[in-house]
């Protein structure tokens, strides 16, 4: 047996310095070196499963937890007890409060800025005697008023409450306000103004005060407040009554409509009933009550009710209608109120006359030629509609006449050709063929046609007009189109 050293030398491995460390160490060392513990597997687990750890574990590793919120920049905030001076105070009082140590030590007191002082108006004796004289007020009392007004920051109710001028007359709040604002107005107006005109007028506007209006308003408020409980109750009862009546009426109308619809059919086209709430509110309370009594007993809604109502209103309102351009088209009273006879309300613009569908194209072309747009009427009044209708009628007539004329002309041409052929005695087969195909469906005896008179031709032309009416593509323009194409079209149609 070869010794370990021999084997080593054969395998060209380095010599083992300490044979005691032996082969037991070797593989272990190797394994730790070669396979590193993958990320995301706990050490204990890895030592159990060894290198057979699933490769996927690496991806599943490390649950990503939600990041911890970072509150307030982290760390603690240091607070300090500092004394401060208040800029809004005139004395040197120092109070203390807790502030963040990071705050500026000599900053202005943050609440001092809320100490807003209004402008105080003052005047000299000379100014007073020139502008501000008032028989009701002395200068001293005016001074007192301004002093107290600024003491209480123009809170007029307080000023009025605390106003105690010795030996002065009792002043209402309006008196005080009026005096204050009028003095301010006069001062602003009569002094030289440093700023622009707009700001001056704006300032004047803010001193606007209408004493009479204010007194009136106060009277209203007082009378509103001084209502007796009975009056308030009555008012409330009336209000509730109105509400109830309105509701009743609405209900009644809805019921009636429903009933009518049920009887006359869903699409009877009954106009929706307009609620006349306005008249209800305007009417005086006594009347309302009476009306309410009537309405409480609901009349049986009869089908003919609206029809029956109309004739009297018509007679009565003839003048009214004339002045307001109302044109009534009533159904004759004899017609029964059925679905067929009923004409629902419509917009006149919906009933603008249209040319007949068959020749609409030609008529439209004609109308555009003369500069009339039939599809849109700027003002579809009754008269305008009538005008348009007559124009369209005329246009239709014209187009039809033209077509008849064309047809006749063509027939005459054809007959003339045949006559020539006869007279020539030759066999104009191609042309005859064409004629034959032209008249194939109508008659089986092309020969007989030759003998027909002009009157017969007129009959044919009407028939052919019918054809052309069916073929939409034919217009007055292509009356001159060769007959072969026309036959083709006709064949198509017949099939």
């Amino acid at each position, binding site marked *: 047996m070869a010794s370990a050293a021999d084997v080593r030398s054969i395998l060209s491995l380095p010599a083992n310095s300490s044979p005691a460390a032996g082969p037991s160490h070797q593989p272990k060392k190797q394994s730790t070196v070669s396979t590193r513990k993958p990320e995301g597997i706990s050490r204990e687990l890895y030592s159990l499963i060894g290198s057979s750890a699933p490769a996927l574990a690496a991806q599943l590793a490390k649950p990503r937890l939600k990041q911890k919120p970072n509150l307030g920049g982290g760390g603690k905030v240091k607070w300090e007890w500092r004394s401060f001076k*208040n800029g*809004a*105070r005139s*004395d*040197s*009082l120092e*109070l*203390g*409060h*807790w502030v963040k140590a990071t705050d500026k030590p000599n900053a202005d*007191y*943050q*609440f*001092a800025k*809320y*100490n807003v002082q209004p402008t105080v108006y003052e005047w000299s004796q000379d100014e007073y005697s020139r502008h501000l004289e008032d028989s009701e007020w002395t200068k001293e009392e005016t001074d007192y008023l301004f002093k107290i007004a600024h*003491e*209480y920051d123009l*809170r007029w*109710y*307080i000023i*009025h*409450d*605390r106003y105690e001028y010795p030996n002065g007359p009792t002043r209402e*709040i309006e008196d005080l306000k009026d005096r204050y604002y009028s003095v301010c107005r006069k001062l602003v107006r009569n002094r030289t103004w440093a700023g622009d005109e707009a700001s001056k007028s704006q300032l004047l506007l803010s001193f606007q005060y209408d004493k009479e209006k204010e007194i009136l308003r*106060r009277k209203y*408020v*007082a009378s509103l*407040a001084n209502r007796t*409980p009975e009056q*308030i109750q009555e008012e409330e009862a009336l209000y509730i009554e109105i509400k109830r009546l309105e509701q009743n009426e609405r209900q009644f109308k809805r019921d009636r409509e429903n009933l009518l619809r049920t009887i006359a059919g869903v699409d009877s086209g009954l106009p929706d009933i307009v609620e006349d709430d306005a008249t209800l509110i305007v009417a005086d309370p006594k009347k309302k009550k009476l009306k309410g009594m009537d309405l409480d007993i609901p009349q049986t809604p009869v089908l003919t009710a609206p029809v029956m109502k109309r004739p009297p209103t018509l007679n009565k309102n003839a003048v009214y209608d004339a002045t307001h351009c109302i044109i009534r088209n009533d159904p004759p009273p004899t017609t029964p109120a059925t679905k067929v006879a009923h004409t629902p309300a419509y917009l006149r613009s919906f009933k603008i006359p249209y040319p007949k569908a068959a020749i609409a194209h030609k008529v439209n072309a004609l109308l555009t030629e003369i500069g009339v747009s039939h599809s849109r009427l700027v003002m579809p009044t009754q008269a305008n509609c009538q005008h348009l209708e007559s124009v369209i009628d005329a246009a239709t007539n014209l187009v039809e006449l033209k077509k008849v004329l064309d047809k006749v002309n063509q027939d005459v041409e054809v007959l003339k050709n045949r006559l020539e052929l006869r007279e020539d005695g030759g066999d104009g087969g191609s042309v005859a063929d064409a004629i034959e195909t032209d008249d194939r469906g109508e008659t089986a005896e092309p020969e007989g046609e030759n003998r027909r008179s002009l009157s017969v031709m007129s009959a044919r032309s009407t028939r052919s007009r019918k054809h052309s009416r069916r073929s939409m593509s034919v217009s007055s323009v292509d009356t001159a189109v060769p007959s072969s194409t026309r036959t083709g079209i006709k064949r198509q149609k017949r099939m």
Partner: protein
Amino acid sequence: MVNYGGDEVSALVIDIGSSSLRAGYAGDDTPKAIIPSPYGYIPPSALSGDGDATMNENGASEVAGKAKSYFGHSGPSIWRANMEIGNPISDGLIADFGPIPALIRHALEDVMHCTASEHPILVTEPSWNTQANRERMAEIMFEEFQVPAFYIANTSVLNTFAAGKGSALVIDIGQSVASVVPVVDGFVLRKGLQFSSLPKLVHAHARHLLTTPNPVRPPAELYPYQLISSKQAVEPNAHPRYTLREDRLAGTTRSWREWYEAREVEEWVQTVAGVLDQGWNDQLLQHRQHKQYEFPTGYNAWFGPERFGVGEMYFHHTPQLVAGNPDIPKHIPGLITDSLKACDPELRQVLISNVVLTGGGSLFSGLADRLGSELARSFPHFKIHAPGNPIERRYGGWLGGSILASLGTFHQLWISREEWQEHGKAIVGQRCK
């Protein structure tokens, strides 16, 4: 903090009422110290030769010569031989300034353990306070307590602030005075100020009800428990069986006895009495529960409709009663009507939709509901702000003071020591409007 406009300068707020004195730090929601306003004192004549050293540990101090005074919770309520009871407050106003510094000192130093000279102090006053009174209070604060800054604010205004409003009709029912005060923009409308000693009338009525013989039950004897040595359980409406502490009877003063009897009556009122929320109605009364109450003597009884009669006094006076006493204090609806009548018609709607009900007396069961139904009779749109929390209701004035004194914008209004020394008493009237 800036968002709320608050800036706490560790101010103190002191609210002195008829029944108790409240003190605490501005910015807190409840006062730290609540001590009774009445105090016990042993006159010098009775003190001589009497070695009363045992009761000294709490709230004892020397006032006015040699009289020994007792303040706080262990003050008047503890029986002491020859101890008289005094109350510096009468009709809501400070009538006797003698014991006031000692009372405040007890609250600040013994209960709150703070030094007055380190804190600005806000003191409250009723709306009908006199100019002399507030100046005297300022003097006490600056001269005796050496406060750096002082302000005196109106309780009605503070109650308005406590309710989070600027304008309100404050109905404050205290222990001795009921008041209705219109407040607009944080100022009291003095012309609309109405107050009466209605709670006293109610108290007298309740006392009369308890102590007069009745076909159903014997009159109640209002001995306080300090004077009772033993008692036995008895049936309702039966005569009580108890023995009095004969050793104490001799040393009990009349004022102490009266004060304690009043407390017994008050406790009965607060526990048993109520008010019907829809006005007096005999049918409705029959359905109301009876309530049992036991007095310290062991006497107990069930109280039925009569307990509502007590509360009814706040809202309605029988014609006989009015005929009997011509200057009977006005009831609450009367106060409200008179107050509103004196106000501008434009303000009435504002005020009536901002009614603030406050004061310990308003905790009477059913009072807020009844007030609502009374107001509904004359005003279509009204709103009553009555905090459900009894602390807020009882100490509304203090709470408002706590809010006010912790506002950043308020700190310019303090009367500083410097201003006091410069301008003297006049500054109080100028600054505290």
